[in-house]
């Protein structure tokens, strides 16, 4: 019976229901997605025991030129751990070597986290299956235990309930699965941790505390539990003092150029990071969009209410009370809005994977994003709120005081009408909000596209990056010989035009950053130091001011170097002068700068744009070495390369093989996606406001049809009537555009006094948007007026 009634009701006003449900569903899905992010970032509790007393401990390096946060030495950290009186618990973790899961045919890359035995105890998390690390995995025990991240367990092992006790192969070593981490695990500064696996702190195949005596790393973090009642200021003072003491004892050389610091930050703050600002900005944008949609639909609802005046009045006349009509209307609207919200929740659920793809790295804990209880409650609140609003609008037009007039209303313009003020207000609000959304999203599009399309500086066409893994080959000599074979065999491949060598891929790893100094001992900065073969620079299409390496340069004890423009600018503004100057990595041995290389840019990842020092290539038995292969763009090139390596030695492995084009594309992918989202937001808001203005103008014109009909019948000129009507209808649009512009200008002025906010408006674009908006509004207003004026006056007089 209910379904029959519902279908009958739907058939009577198909357009209204479809427009309402789908407009709300789309807008609400955006609102609910953002709310889920708000909930995740601000409200969702951390899955830790007493998280308010947990802090992240990191080190930093301070120089006269600036400050590099998040640079920590393991021994200094241990010194702080052993000598402080502020912490009751202290655990550490990092990630270092790249691993593949050799169990599986496709040998997927896997992030492997190293953790001290007490990390999970300090956090207070429980295993999903089996156990987490305990004293068995203490540093020194070298236990081959592994904990699977929840998603790794689900994805690669299909959630096998018997996984505990089984062995898995990470690169060339086998580990025993002792447990599975919980699905809500988060770790400060690392995102998507559910995709990782955990091994004991002393079990990495490359990194060890002993081998890293002097290195300061960005990836090493510690979690500490602060004693109750401790003063954070006192702790900060103690930490810095201990850090300097530890550095003096353990890494004294660093103190020549750096002040060593150590600091703590609350775990929630670290996990939230920049997420809070991003999510708040998204919230503002989506709220504006929601406001536009609601105004749009409210004006439609008002128009519908006006058309239903007589129905409501008749109900009043036959004994309906305000309460009864309100309940009736509310029931109807709850069903309609509830349907829209249900659809929105569905869309939101599907959108999470897109959000995770786009925002991973920018917003933390995204792998735990889901529809929470708070989101469901929020959506119920929205349902009730919007339904109440609609019911209020529906019933406000009729009351006991105006029953007789309402009973005479035909709903076609005679009788009760929406007041001019209300119509203008609705138009004005929509235009204001939409203008602001359009301006903001246009700037996002401009910024993200400019970044994504920024020149790379290198030629990427027909170029491939190959990283060969020699780790299964023992002995430097054997590796060296095999490396020579690799080089020569690659050159002989039919599809290959040229091969150049580089110690690490063009996409830099931050591990190989070295201090550089000029001849006066001034610290120039931390620079990458890749080793390249002659011709590598030219193969990438990079210009050199000066000369490239020669084949024998690597044999020299005091070999020359090439530096990039970024580093050269720190030495002198005159590049010619830089050629022939000298730099050092230790302020003892100096190397002549043979040439200055054009910069490489990484659109979408400015963090990769380091100063660089190129050193002549000389394979020294590294576990991994890279090659730049120039070959035709062919599907067969990878196959050829893999076969060639396989023939040389079966122990050789391809750590990675990809085109330079695809590598660069991946970096800018997020910018492009952000640009597309901004375009969609802007388009949706523009479309909604055009529909809204058109709808309201349509309505306003219809209620004035009679007047227009009289004027036409009296011989008024069509052009004159059109002009007069348009001037009247465009007034609220223009006024709200002026208001929106003024509001934006005021906000911009305010932002200048807020230090953390930097807004850089593009005035030309804003002006273009303003004019475009005005023209578009004129067009959507023109059409309904033109339609009425084109009719027979008598039809307007009869209100047909």
């Amino acid at each position, binding site marked *: 019976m209910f379904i029959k009634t519902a279908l009958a009701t739907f058939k009577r006003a198909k357009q209204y229901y479809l427009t309402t449900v789908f407009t709300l569903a789309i807008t609400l899905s955006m609102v609910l997605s953002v709310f889920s992010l708000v909930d995740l970032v601000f409200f969702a509790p951390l899955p830790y025991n007493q998280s308010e007393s947990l802090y992240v401990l990191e080190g930093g390096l301070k120089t006269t030129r600036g400050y590099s946060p998040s640079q920590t030495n393991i021994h200094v950290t241990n010194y702080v751990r052993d000598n402080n009186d502020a912490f009751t618990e202290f655990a550490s973790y990092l990630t270092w070597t790249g691993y593949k899961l050799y169990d599986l045919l496709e040998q997927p890359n896997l992030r492997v986290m190293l953790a001290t035995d007490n990390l999970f105890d300090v956090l207070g998390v429980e295993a999903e299956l089996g156990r987490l690390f305990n004293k068995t995995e203490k540093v020194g025990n070298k236990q081959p235990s592994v904990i699977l991240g929840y998603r790794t367990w689900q994805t690669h092992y299909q959630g096998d309930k018997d996984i505990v006790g089984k062995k898995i192969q990470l690169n060339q070593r086998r580990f025993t699965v002792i447990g599975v981490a919980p699905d809500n695990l988060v770790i400060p500064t690392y995102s998507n941790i559910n995709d990782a696996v955990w091994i004991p702190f002393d079990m990495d195949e490359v990194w060890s505390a002993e081998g890293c005596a002097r290195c300061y790393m960005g990836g090493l973090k510690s979690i500490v539990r602060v004693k109750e009642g401790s003063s954070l200021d006192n702790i900060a003072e103690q930490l810095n003092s201990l850090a300097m003491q530890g550095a003096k004892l353990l890494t004294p050389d660093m103190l020549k150029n750096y002040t060593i610091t150590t600091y703590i930050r609350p775990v929630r703050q670290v996990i939230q990071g920049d997420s809070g600002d991003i999510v708040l900005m998204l919230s503002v944008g989506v709220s504006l969009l929601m406001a536009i949609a609601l105004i749009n639909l409210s004006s439609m609802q008002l128009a519908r209410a006006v058309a239903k005046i007589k*129905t409501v009045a*008749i*109900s009043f006349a036959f*004994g309906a009370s305000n309460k009864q009509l309100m309940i009736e209307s509310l029931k109807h609207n709850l069903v309609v809005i509830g349907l829209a919200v249900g659809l929105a929740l569905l869309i939101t659920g599907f959108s999470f994977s897109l959000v995770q793809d786009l925002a991973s790295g920018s917003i933390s804990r995204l792998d735990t994003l889901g529809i929470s209880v708070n989101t469901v409650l929020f959506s119920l609140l929205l349902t009730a709120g919007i339904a109440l609003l609609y019911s209020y609008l529906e019933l406000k037009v009729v009351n006991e005081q105006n029953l007789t007039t309402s009973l005479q209303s035909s709903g076609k313009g005679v009788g009760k009408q929406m007041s001019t003020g209300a119509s203008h207000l609705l138009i004005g609000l929509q235009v204001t909000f939409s203008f602001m959304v359009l301006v903001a999203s246009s700037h996002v599009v401009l910024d993200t596209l400019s970044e994504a399309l920024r020149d790379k500086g290198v030629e990427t066409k027909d170029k491939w990056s190959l990283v060969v893994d020699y780790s299964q080959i023992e002995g430097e000599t054997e590796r060296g010989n095999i490396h020579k074979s690799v080089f020569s065999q690659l050159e002989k491949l039919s599809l290959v035009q040229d091969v150049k060598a580089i110690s690490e891929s063009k996409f830099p790893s931050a591990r190989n950053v070295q201090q550089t100094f000029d001849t006066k001992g001034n610290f120039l900065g931390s620079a990458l130091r890749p080793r390249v073969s002659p011709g590598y620079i030219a193969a990438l299409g990079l210009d050199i001011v000066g000369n490239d390496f020669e084949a024998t340069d690597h044999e020299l004890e005091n070999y020359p170097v090439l530096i990039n423009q970024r580093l050269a600018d720190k030495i002198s503004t005159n590049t010619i002068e830089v050629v022939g100057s000298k730099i050092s990595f230790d302020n003892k041995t100096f190397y002549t700068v043979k040439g200055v290389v054009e910069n490489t840019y990484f659109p979408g990842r400015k963090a990769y744009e380091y100063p660089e020092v190129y050193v002549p290539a000389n394979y020294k038995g590294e576990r991994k070495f890279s090659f730049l292969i120039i070959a035709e763009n062919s599907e067969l090139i990878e196959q050829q390369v893999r076969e060639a390596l396989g023939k040389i030695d079966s122990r050789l492995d391809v750590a990675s093989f990809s085109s330079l084009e695809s590598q660069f594309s991946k970096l800018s992918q997020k910018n492009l996606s952000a640009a597309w989202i901004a375009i969609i937001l802007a388009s949706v808001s523009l479309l909604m406001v055009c529909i809204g203005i058109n709808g309201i103008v349509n309505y306003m014109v219809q209620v004035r049809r009679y007047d227009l009909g009289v004027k036409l019948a009296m011989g008024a000129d069509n052009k004159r009537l059109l002009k007069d009507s348009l001037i009247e209808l465009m007034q609220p649009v223009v006024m709200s555009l002026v208001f929106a512009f003024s509001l934006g200008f005021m906000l911009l002025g305010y932002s200048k006094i807020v230090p953390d906010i930097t807004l850089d408006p593009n005035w030309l674009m804003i002006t273009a948007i303003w004019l475009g908006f005005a023209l578009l509004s004129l067009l959507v207003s023109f059409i309904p007026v033109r339609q009425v004026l084109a009719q027979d006056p008598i039809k307007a007089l009869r209100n047909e």
Partner: protein
Amino acid sequence: MKNQILKISNITKSFKSGDQNTQVLKGISFSIEEGEFVSISGPSGCGKSTLLNIMGILDTPDSGDYMVDGLQVATMNASQRAKVRGDRIGFVFQSFNLIDEFTVLENIALPLKYRGDSADKRRARAQECLAKVNLADKADLFPSQLSGGQQQRISIARALAGNSGIMLVDEPTGNLDSKNGDAVMALLQELNKQGTTIVLVTHDPRYADMAQRNIQLRDGLIISDGHETNENLVQVEVA
């Protein structure tokens, strides 16, 4: 002595249009007994429809008293007024005022819906009323599918449905041709014979004379109030 179910005492009503204040009713007083068939007639603009709207609690007077079943309407709250409209008064409009989206049966059942009757009860009563106006076969049609005369009969059935006992009828023949108009008037007479109190507003003297009693209005005042008793017509002239 029959019950006085409606009593109007010194009702005034004016309408404001810009700066102009037009007094439509200038002090109207009369009462109606149960079972009466009263017509209110007069020239266009004399205030008869305004008076009927006040009697139907669709409008409020500027001053004066209006009592329904001895209860003062002015002291009632909104819920009480709605209850009186639903339980005690059935209204028939000149322009029918049927709801286009509802079927004939749903239109007739409307007063019962707000009284809280169950769907089955409403349906049964609506069918009964539909039968009374001889349109039982039109139950599932929509108003737009009916002629003017049929729509007005549906409107009468709706006024009957609540079993309110009082029917206020505003120019029921105004939008009908004479044949349909006669049919509607015949129906009203039949209903009155069955015990329904009817107050009819009409500008047509033929139809006004069909009532037992005719109240004539002019310029917002009663100029005559005629009674028809069982034996003879007593005319009372009001100064």
